[in-house]
Structure formats: structure tokens, C-alpha cells
């Protein structure tokens, strides 16, 4: 696993930051926020790409998104014992990434210059990394990988879908290893879009709180290495967890508002349970989508009650977006890592910034700090604009669970 986000620049720092309830939502300085209604977000501060990416890798024309995902990939490869990348695995290794704004941050400055000269003498090479598929191409190219490549663009669920799809690539025999995850850089366009929709919190993100007033935007790269169990065991790799299943559904309701009846979210969790062969009773922890918009949190609470019945009240549910903010295209992948860390390190991460209970949100949101717990399974939700819902389910890896057959 590898990550850079607002509360940690690597996995070893991420777990304690989550446990201690660090908040990464602060004033942002990546661009000038004058004119915007909000000024805060989960920015990755002090990111100097060369501190993460060795000199032998070219960074030419790479966007912030490319650099962040590349840095997280390097950490994940080291962690998996795949650095330098073994030649015998190159042919069967694929890349599956949930994309977001891609190189829009860089394109914004290009566009300013483009207008000044009415398009003459514009250096289009500055747009070389504009599209979010660029990140996967950079990764595959740097390590001479010849497996499948795909980039998912379903806004806030892209990172989760990329991980589910990667599982399918391996199960379907198209790849034996997949570098999977998501990346989202901050940029003015995204910030302006969410401001225009009036879904951004005035100060900070308060999931499930009665006075929650919106999300906080963030940025992150989150990469996991998925591998066939036999291949990982043969290499003697350290296994962090197991992906048990995933589900994708659509609201078919509204482009930016979730269906308040929660049908899409319910069906997404049910599809993931079905795929993993588990029953609702088997789930020990829910990493909520929990954006802290008034509608999402009420809807998601309703959906969890619908799927889990009475047990909904006894399953810990937390939104770690209160700490690392909403990282959009990376969110599903970042929260997959949160779920795996919770399983591996035996804790339930908290929901921070929660002050007042909302009668509509009456589950156990883990609001007074992290808890120790021996979790066996974790379910992670990602719901997106366009009504795109993805749910992932992870299991703690034990030799016994290795016998688990889908």
C-alpha cells in the first residue's frame, strides 16, 4: 500500500494519524482562494515530488496527479517487495486507476496563457498530462508493465471501482498483479464547481453532525497492490488484507443529489455482500461515504439501517473524511486503505469534528476517539455524482481465510 494525503505522506504515518484523529482540513494555499466562499480543504502540504521519486525516473511534463500517484505507487511497490520491479512479473501486471481532475491544475495556467495570445504560439505539450488516464500510463511505462490498463472516471467512486475491477482482472486471468487505486489533485475548477453547487462546508467537515453543512475538498493518492494469493505467498510477500467482494449500482435519480430513498446505496451494499458471499451479520466495521452534506449522511444512515436491520446500531460506522477530507476520485481507494489498516492493526478509526447528535443520524459513528477492536471484515462505501455507487468489502488476512472461495 502507498498513500499521500492531507494527514500523512506515507502508510506508516497514516495509521497513527487515523487512530489519533488528526485533522488535515486547513486553509489551502495551492491556489488563491479569494473569490471563493470557502478557503479550507485537505491539501497535501509540502509535497516535493523529488523527495519521493528517485532521480532515475523522469518527471518531465508530469501533472501533480501523475506525481502523487507515482510517489504512492513507489511506496506500495516497496511495501509489496516489488521494487525494483521483478522482470518475470512485468508481463502479467496491470494498472487500474480511479481518476479525477488529472492535469487540470496545470491546464488552468495553460488556458490563461492561451487566451492572452488568442491561441497563437500555445504550447500544447503543456497539456500532455491533462487527461487522468495519463497517471496509469506513466506508472506502466516506468516499470515496463504489459498487463491491462484502465482508468475509471466516475467522480467520487472511481477509486473504489478501480480496485473492484482490478480484482476481476485477476480473477478473470487477464492479470496476476494489478497496481490499483485512485488519485485526485486539488484544482480551482473542482473547487469552484463544488462551491457553485453550495456543497462545501464553511469551516470544516462534520459527518453525521446535526449542524453539518457540507463537505471539505481534499486531495490524495492511494495505491494498493492486488495479487493472486498463490503468487503473493510464493514470493513471501507481506499480505495486508483480502478483497472479498464489490458491488456497483446506479441511483438513476439525479445527477448531483443522492436518492433520499437510498435505493442505490442499499443495492450497492447488497451487491457487494452477494459478491463476497457474506451476510450482513458478517460485517464488523463500515467505512462510510459520510461526506457531511446534509442529504448524503441522512441517506447513507437510512441505507445502512435498511441493509443491516437492528444490527445497524451495533456496527461501528465512521467517516474518515472528517480527517483527510473528501478526495473525490481517490476517495474510494484511500478509504480502502483505511479499511485495510483498521483490519490489520485492530482499530476502528473515529469520526472527528462531531459535536451534536442528529436525530436522523442515530448510529454508532465512533465520535469519541478510535477504538481497539479485532475486526475481521470491513465494508467501504463510495457514492458519486451521476448516481454511481460502489461498495467494497475487505477481510482480515489469515491463513484460514485463504481457503475462502468466492
Amino acid at each position: 500500500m502507498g498513500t499521500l494525503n492531507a494527514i500523512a505522506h506515507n502508510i506508516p504515518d497514516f495509521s497513527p494519524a487515523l487512530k489519533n484523529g488528526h485533522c488535515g482540513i486547513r486553509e489551502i494555499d495551492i491556489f488563491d482562494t479569494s473569490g471563493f466562499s470557502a478557503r479550507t480543504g485537505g491539501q497535501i502540504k509540502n509535497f516535493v515530488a523529488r523527495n519521493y521519486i528517485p532521480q532515475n525516473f523522469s518527471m518531465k511534463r508530469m501533472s501533480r496527479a501523475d506525481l502523487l500517484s507515482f510517489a504512492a505507487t513507489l511506496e506500495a511497490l516497496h511495501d509489496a517487495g516489488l521494487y525494483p520491479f521483478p522482470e518475470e512479473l512485468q508481463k502479467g501486471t496491470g494498472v487500474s486507476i480511479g481518476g479525477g481532475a488529472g492535469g487540470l491544475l496545470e491546464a488552468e495556467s495553460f488556458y490563461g496563457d492561451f487566451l492572452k495570445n488568442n491561441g497563437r504560439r500555445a504550447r500544447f505539450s503543456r497539456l500532455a498530462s491533462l487527461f487522468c488516464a495519463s497517471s496509469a500510463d506513466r506508472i506502466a511505462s516506468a516499470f515496463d508493465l504489459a498487463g491491462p490498463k484502465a482508468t475509471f472516471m466516475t467522480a467520487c467512486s472511481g477509486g473504489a471501482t478501480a480496485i473492484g475491477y482490478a480484482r476481476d482482472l485477476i480473477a478473470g486471468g487477464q492479470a496476476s498483479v494489478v497496481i490499483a487505486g485512485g488519485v485526485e489533485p486539488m484544482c480551482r475548477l473542482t473547487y469552484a464547481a463544488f462551491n457553485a453547487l453550495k456543497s462545501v462546508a464553511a469551516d470544516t467537515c462534520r459527518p453525521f453532525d446535526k449542524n453539518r453543512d457540507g463537505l471539505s475538498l481534499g486531495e490524495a493518492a492511494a495505491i494498493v497492490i492486488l495479487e493472486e494469493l498463490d503468487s503473493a505467498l510464493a514470493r513471501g510477500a507481506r499480505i495486508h488484507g483480502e478483497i472479498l467482494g464489490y458491488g456497483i449500482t446506479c441511483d438513476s435519480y439525479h445527477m448531483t443529489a443522492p436518492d433520499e430513498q437510498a435505493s442505490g446505496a442499499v443495492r450497492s451494499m447488497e451487491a457487494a455482500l452477494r459478491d463476497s458471499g457474506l451476510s450482513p451479520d458478517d460485517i464488523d466495521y463500515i467505512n462510510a461515504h459520510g461526506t457531511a452534506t446534509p442529504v448524503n449522511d441522512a441517506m447513507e444512515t437510512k441505507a445502512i439501517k435498511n441493509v443491516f436491520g437492528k444490527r445497524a446500531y451495533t456496527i461501528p460506522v465512521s467517516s474518515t473524511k472528517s480527517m483527510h477530507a473528501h478526495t473525490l476520485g481517490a476517495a474510494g481507494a484511500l478509504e480502502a486503505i483505511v479499511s485495510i489498516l483498521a483490519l490489520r492493526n485492530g482499530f476502528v478509526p473515529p469520526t472527528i469534528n462531531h459535536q451534536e447528535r442528529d436525530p436522523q443520524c442515530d448510529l454508532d459513528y465512533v465520535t469519541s476517539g478510535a477504538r481497539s477492536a479485532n475486526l475481521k471484515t470491513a465494508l467501504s462505501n463510495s457514492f458519486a455524482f451521476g448516481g454511481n455507487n460502489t461498495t467494497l468489502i475487505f477481510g482480515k488476512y489469515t491463513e484460514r481465510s485463504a481457503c475462502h472461495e468466492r
Partner: protein
Amino acid sequence: MNADRPQNDARRVVVSGLGMVTPLGVGKEDFSRRLFAGDTAIRGIQSFDTGDFSSHLGAEVTEFKPRDFIAVKNLRRMDKISLMTVASARMALEDAGLQITAENRDRVGIILGTAFGATDITVQFLHTLSQEGPASVNPILVPNTVMNAPAGHTSIELGFRGINTTITHFAVSAENAMAYAAAEIRRGTADFIFAGGSDILSEIAYRSLIGFGALSPQNKGNETCRPFDQERNGCIAGEGCGMILLESLQSAKQRGCNYYCEISGAGMGASPTRPNEWPRDTEGIKRTFARAVKNAGIAINDLQAIYAGANGDKILDAVEAEAYAEIFDAGKCPFITSIKGATGESFSSGGIRACAAALSMANQILPPTAGLANPLRALDFVIQEKKEADIHHAALAGISFGGTYCYLIFSKS
């Protein structure tokens, strides 16, 4: 797709509906008639002024009337790429004779490929933001700046709620989407999935493609699209949407539906390539092709046709042709055709090309490669006129700059 082609009807995947909005016509009658007649949609760009640009030709969608497919009250919510996508899906739905009901809607989905998304709307948004500031941006535009908007609008318009996702991986976006959809039908997570590709030809996309040296005339000669021709000098930008509806063979039989062909296999792969450049090696194509053929449970020599990815580019066409020359023994190469001389290059062209392939398989006719006169290699290209042929198995090529590949195998069952 899952290893080995299954024999079980419930796990075999067929193409049962087609819908398309293309420069060569809207709907399968027009598209098919002009495609097999060897017509081309390439002409001077009409929708913006190409005055001092170095390229002036394009393949634009000109005959599309969104009102024929979408309720008037919903038109204003959608931009061009979403309108084309919704219309194509509706045509595919009607073509397959499928009704979406409260009983089946949770098992109907869409997996769409788009190379560049709504570049027109994104630039409009960026323009307001940079010229007037964040307070002036229009919230109604926001949902359409995101690449998953077309699939989202389609699900709302047609009322289905199953799997819904959008893949963007440059020139293999649509092929990847169709391969994923076929795998999901095989896996049984959905009963019906719309799959294909959609992209638009905006002024900013056109100027960027010129800036990257992608468009004809790459050599400052005559501007034209000549796939696989010795005189080729770049592609001509196009646009459009092509959508296929996939279901299991068992489902098609139960519905008594005439299907076009089966998608019997898929292969995906890559080869190390510089970002934004076409691959210069044949290894990636050969490996991916072999993976697809194996996945379909057939042998290389079982193929009678290849619907190629060649678009007239100096490098792409040479590498693709060389790969086929290496894969097949001399004299045993299947017929090869590329329709990009007729439809232009939309980069998610796989959707439109899959529609062409399905029509080709069903009618046992191969469309000609418009623009090709003097082949760069001695292979069996379909030149000048359509060709009748017994096509049992055919390959649809997806090759992207950046070195990504996806091949699909279409079979007549």
C-alpha cells in the same frame, strides 16, 4: 473476461441491440447503408472556424436531432456528448426489443468509454472561472464537466439502475468498456449492459490534436485520411457515439431476440511506450491479440476478419500492419478493414466500430477501407468496395497512444 470461453448459454455473451450517432448517419439503417457503400463523412469543419489552423477537415455529426430521442424538458440538462449517448442507448434498447420495467431495471446497466469527455463544457466552465471568477460559474454546467455524466444521464432517461461506470483510457476507452461489460454479463452481475464509446469534436480538442501533431497533414501535404496507405499522413478528427447492448445467449433465446453475434473473448495489455505517443513495437499487439484469441477458445487461424484500429497515422498503421504480418503466416492473414476513413477518429471509436462489426458479422459483408488505395504491406485489406465473406470469427482492435491495447473477439454462433 473469465478464462476460457464457456459453453453454457447463460455465460455466453451476445450483441442484441445497436445504436449509433455518427458522422456517417444516425441509426443503423443510414449508418449501415453509407458504411457498406464506401461513403465517407469527412469534409470541411462546419461548427467552428478553422481559418488559420493547419488542418481543416473533420468528420462531424450533422444529422442528429436530439428531440427524436429525448423528452424536450430534459434536453436542456444535457450537453452534446450526453445527448448522443442517451440517443444511442435508446436506439440500442429499441433495436433489441427490450423494455425496461420495475422488475428488470436493477439488472440493466451501462459501461461507457470516453477518451476526452465533454471538452466543450469543461472549457466553457474554465473560461468563466478564469475571466469572471468563481462567483460567476454556472452550477448547471457542473455535473456535465465530469466524464461520468453521459452514463448518468442515460440511466436517468432510460430508467435503469444496475452497474454504471465510465472508463477513460484514451483510444481504448470503448474497447475496455465493452470487455468489462461482457465480463460482467458472463459473471452474472447484470442481465443487460449497454456498452460503447462516446466523444465529441470540440474546437479545443481539434486545436489540441493539431498541437500534438496527430492530424493530417502531418507532412504538410494533402489533408486526407488514408488508413494503411503508403501516402497516409495523419488521422482526421471525428466524433460520435456507438453503443451495443449485451446480454447472455440464454436471455436472447428466451426473449426470442435476433442477435447480431457473440462476444466470445477479450484480451487486454500494454507495452512500454512514451506518454501520448503511438507504440513503435509490435509486442503489445501480438501479446494482447493472443490473449484475446485464447480467451475466446479459438485458434489464430479461425479468424476471417480484423476490424482494425488504423486511422491514417504514420506510426500506428505501420505498427498494426506489421503486427498482423508477424502474427499470421504469409497468405493466411484474415481480411483487414478500417472504417476510420469513413467516420474519422473519435478516439472512443471502438463503440462505432463494434456496431459496424456486428452489422458486418450479421450480414457477412465487410465494409471497405475508405481512403486506402496503395497498401503499405501485402495483406488482405478490403479496398474500394465492400466484400462478401464467410466470417465466423473476427477481431476488433483497440490500440491507444501511450501503449494500451484491448482486442475483442466477435463470433457468429
